[in-house]
């Protein structure tokens, strides 16, 4: 509840200020690790709506609840001149079922993610070539007891990714479609919540993709897919996927509701649930 109060104050504050001048929706939303993108995939977009002489700030709160887990993320980001993006996200992952089962009721995995992204070329809307960006996510696990016990090697790690994103004006059928492909090099276990590396290996290159469509100027639907690998023999990881509905009434607010399937996580199978993310920008 306290989260929502702060969020409300933030949104009230945000809407009194100016936002950048890029077109509605082109700032995308904050993904789970704090970078501009969709639910689980970083895009080549720079957070906020700033163009080459503008700087925007974004904040977001994200929640995902499955049968056995509760995920939360608080993030802030600054998008500088539609060129650079700095972000910080604090994630928590409550082990509602697993904690009590292993004699640690109330156990929570925590991680901080520092992100940096640079737009290398292209413009999401106006150029024929896609917008292309390179990004880094430095991840620091804050509660390494459980990750260490299940065999993770490190409590910190760096993800590198290259991403291409494109908005297709009037395609298909006059709607504006959008697509992103991201290649990520990572050694994270369950995006880093279970540490980095393990007995089965460490660094992998994974494909992530996001596809969608604006139904009108303020509503979009889409689909995310994120490939994952297993470094820990105690439990296999599943690829993640979600379908989302985004509402972008203006340049200050966006809300994403999604249904996410994160599969098997730390021995508990078939984790699915609703995802909600609220973003504010100014």
């Amino acid at each position: 509840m306290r989260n929502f109060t702060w969020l409300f104050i933030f949104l009230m504050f945000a809407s009194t200020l100016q936002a950048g001048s890029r077109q509605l929706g082109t700032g995308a939303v904050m993904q789970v690790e704090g970078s501009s993108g969709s639910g689980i995939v970083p895009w080549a977009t720079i957070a906020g709506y700033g163009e080459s002489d503008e700087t925007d700030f974004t904040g977001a709160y994200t929640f995902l609840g499955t049968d056995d887990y509760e995920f939360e993320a608080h993030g802030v980001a600054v998008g500088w001149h539609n060129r650079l993006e700095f972000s910080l996200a604090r994630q928590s992952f409550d082990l509602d079922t697993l904690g009590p089962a292993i004699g640690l009721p109330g156990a929570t995995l925590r991680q901080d993610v520092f992100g940096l992204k640079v737009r290398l070329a292209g413009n999401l809307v106006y150029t024929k070539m896609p917008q292309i960006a390179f990004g880094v996510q430095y991840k620091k696990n804050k509660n390494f007891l459980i990750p260490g016990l299940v065999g993770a090697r490190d409590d910190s790690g760096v993800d590198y990714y290259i991403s291409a994103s494109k908005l297709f004006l009037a395609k298909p059928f006059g709607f504006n479609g959008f697509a992103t492909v991201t290649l990520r090099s990572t050694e994270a276990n369950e995006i880093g919540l279970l540490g980095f590396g393990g007995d089965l290996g460490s660094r992998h290159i994974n494909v992530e993709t996001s596809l969608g469509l604006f139904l009108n100027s303020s509503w979009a639907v889409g689909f995310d897919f994120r490939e994952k690998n297993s470094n820990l023999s105690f439990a296999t990881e599943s690829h993640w996927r979600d379908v989302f509905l985004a509402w972008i009434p203006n340049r200050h607010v966006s809300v994403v509701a999604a249904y996410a399937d994160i599969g098997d996580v730390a021995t508990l199978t078939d984790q699915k649930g609703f995802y909600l993310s609220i973003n504010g920008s100014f």
Partner: protein
Amino acid sequence: MKNLTIKSILFVITLSCSLNQAHASDDNLYQALGGEPVINTITKELLDRILNNEKIAFLFEDTVRDELHEKIVSQICMETGGPCVYEGLDMIETHSGMDIKYSEFDVFVSDFIDAMEAAEVPYRLQNKVLAIFASMREDITYE
């Protein structure tokens, strides 16, 4: 050699057919928009916005509204495949020396979208019009 010539001719024919097809579908866009009356309304709404928008109004200080109106109408008409010929300077010449920034271009596009909205142009037709003008960004801006 002869074979190559035939292939070249076929290539040119195919190309011009596909260009004609593209033009035919643009023709539909002009009709679909509602022809000149609607383009007039869009332009009026656009000028009401850009000439009063403090972020970009200064870019039009040296222009006469009626002349600008006429130029924009004929350009939208021609680009959407209507029966008009735009006789003004091209986009590079028109905007040279104005040092237009990307952000100013985007402010103009937002006003253009609002103008089409005010003229009750359906969303999907708005996108088709934007798709034509989006590629002009590099010619219009100076970055």
